């Protein structure tokens, strides 16, 4: 925040003109996207247009007009598309947010560690492991997690006397699965944000111990809290127990989505950090810091890492589409067959997130809903990009001033 204020104060004009320029570029991109998507679907997905809606051009103009006022038309079920999307959005945001933050923390830590401290062999091994996870077929990853996670979990529950029959578990659950996702995800997200702020503050004040334990301790605290309340336990049940009693493999819970996404995404973050840090290792300032007997960890985390951060940020966004692919597949994969046991139990269908909605829409050829989901995803990515670009511009003045050259 202080950097932000300093930058905006000292260079107000160029900063705001940069922001306005990027914002208008994003809006143009969004308009182009909706046009491309509209005509792509028009050409590629044959469906019966209601006769009343007139020509393609007429429909396009009407759709664009609606878009400006936030009206995405009506789904074939009769419900306004915007309402359907708003219902699914929190789940997607929470899963992507928490999974993304956890993957970033784990990946950046491993990336820094492996680039700095491991030899060539260790780096090769950790890269191979990360590559194997990153390229693993998502349904296979979900299957392996379920297959090997199930038995220890059931055994653990039996040992402490918790019910292992999923019907029993669901009868005592007063919440729907969607509530679980939203409450659990929100709690995790808030905890992570608080932990990161705490860590930043502790570093500033020089309390090193507090700084390094802020994130793990907060996460552990959250886990204890939700286990105490009984929600975390339930969230785990939702997946593992159901598949223990049912042959249905692939039924799942939000917890599994987050874990699978974490495993899939951290490798990419690790690669990016590794590359960034390896470049910094031979810089003169690192040698200077070492010559002054600065502890190695401090050189790594406080001298080299901040310098590696810019290229990392730039590269992270070009890998965003690929990470999203993984998330979309995993979310849907886990959703398939979810709640196979719903009859009689108080388990309510987990309505899933945007990706589940997209798959359903594609299978039902619900064109207004397909368009709506695609445009919503476009808006989300545009917002992420804009935030990253502004952060980049604040940190690197060359970008703000670049075009004046």
């Amino acid at each position: 925040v202080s950097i932000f204020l300093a930058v905006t104060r000292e260079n107000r004009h160029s900063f705001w003109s940069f922001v306005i320029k990027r914002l208008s570029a994003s809006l143009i991109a969004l308009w182009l996207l909706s046009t491309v998507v509209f005509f792509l679907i028009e050409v590629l997905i044959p469906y019966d247009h209601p006769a009343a809606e007139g020509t393609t051009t007429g429909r396009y103009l009407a759709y664009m007009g609606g878009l400006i006022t936030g009206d995405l038309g009506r789904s074939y079920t009769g419900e306004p598309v915007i309402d359907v999307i708003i219902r699914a959005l929190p789940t997607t945001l929470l899963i992507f947010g928490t999974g993304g933050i956890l993957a970033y923390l784990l990946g950046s830590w491993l990336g820094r560690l492996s680039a700095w401290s491991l030899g060539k062999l260790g780096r090769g091994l950790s890269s191979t492991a990360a590559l194997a996870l990153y390229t693993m077929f998502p349904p296979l990853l979900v299957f392996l997690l379920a297959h090997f996670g199930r038995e220890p979990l059931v055994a653990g529950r039996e040992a402490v006397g918790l019910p292992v029959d999923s019907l029993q578990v669901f009868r005592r659950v007063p919440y729907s699965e969607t509530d679980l996702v939203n409450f659990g995800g929100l709690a995790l997200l808030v905890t992570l944000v608080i932990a990161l702020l705490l860590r930043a503050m502790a570093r500033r004040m020089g309390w090193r111990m507090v700084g390094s334990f802020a994130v793990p301790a907060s996460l552990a605290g959250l886990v204890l809290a939700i286990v105490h309340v009984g929600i975390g336990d339930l969230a785990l049940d939702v997946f593992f127990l159901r598949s223990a009693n049912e042959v249905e493999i692939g039924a799942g819970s939000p917890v599994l989505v987050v874990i699978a996404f974490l495993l899939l995404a951290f490798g990419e973050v690790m690669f990016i950090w590794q590359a960034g840090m390896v470049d910094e290792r031979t810089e003169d300032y690192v040698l200077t810091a070492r010559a002054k007997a600065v502890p190695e960890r401090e050189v790594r985390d406080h001298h080299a890492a901040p310098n590696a951060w810019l290229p990392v940020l730039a590269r992270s966004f070009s890998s965003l589409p690929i990470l999203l692919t993984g998330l979309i597949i995993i979310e849907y994969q886990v959703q398939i067959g979810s709640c196979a046991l719903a009859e009689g139990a108080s388990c309510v269908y987990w309505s899933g997130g945007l990706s589940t909605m997209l798959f359903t829409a594609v299978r039902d050829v619900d064109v207004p809903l397909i368009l709506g989901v695609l445009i919503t995803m476009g808006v989300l990515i545009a917002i992420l990009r804009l935030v990253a670009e502004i952060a980049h511009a604040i940190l690197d003045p060359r970008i703000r001033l670049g075009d004046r050259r």
Partner: protein
Amino acid sequence: MNGASASVGRILGDPKVRAGLVLLVFLTGLAISHPVLRDTVWAEEGLLYHPETGHDSELVHPSGWSAQHWLGTDPLGRDVFSTLTFSLRPALVVAVLAAAAVGVLSLLAGSMAAYFRGLLDQTITSLADALTLLPPAIALLVVGLDRPAFGVVDAGLLFGVSYGLGPATLVVRSRARSLMVKPFIDCSRVAGSGARRIISFDLIPHLLPYAGVQMMAAGIGALTTVAFIQYLGATDAARMSLGSMIYTAIDVQPVLPPGFGTFNLGDYSARIAWNAIASAGLAMTLIAVAFYLIATGTRDAVVPETRSR
């Protein structure tokens, strides 16, 4: 000294690139072995080794490896080696096509945008910005789900074009713009090089490693997405692919011989077709590893300072 051929020579000499190419050749060899074996060794057995409809009625399926079935059989009794080699061809076609499309499009669009600037640059960048907002996997899923007529070639090209003109062009263009202010471009211009010469001999060789990383991402992404479409479409178990191999291995209940008793979880989990899961999973990982080795090796060869020290 020709800059382009010198850098191609350096790239081909890099050990990582060589390892990646060897791996790719090996996988292609496996794919080619299918029609060869089909017409020679397996021809006498009739439909026993057919990748889609074969069934060995003398064994309990899924079975482990044996002399007759090198990689065992899947829950439906099909020979895993046969289905694997059969499925590798479409998988390689998708990955290579997507990567090639990304390479060609991003190098051309990115370098031309950086060289000519002005209106052309604005047009290319706006389109790329817009396409970046549409993850190519989603485009592919929307168009390809539940549509058998949409083949692997269409899928590879659609993925390659939407990724190549989108995110990949943005990356290559920004790199090309920083190259354009380097003195060697001015030297080339003073020496009388035209636009075509500068783009193809001065810009593109330096942009190759950046395009290479994007090509890898596209190849892996296309492979995964298409496999997922196949996995979802796999209720029609006759259409064979890496995705449906995994579907069959995970989700299809084994065909039990008469008198095997009622179905229960214990018997089921003892009989998960790990051979089929591992074969298909490993094949996908190996394709990805080959792409990774070629991309990072190219980067090491052209940008020596990224080589891990």
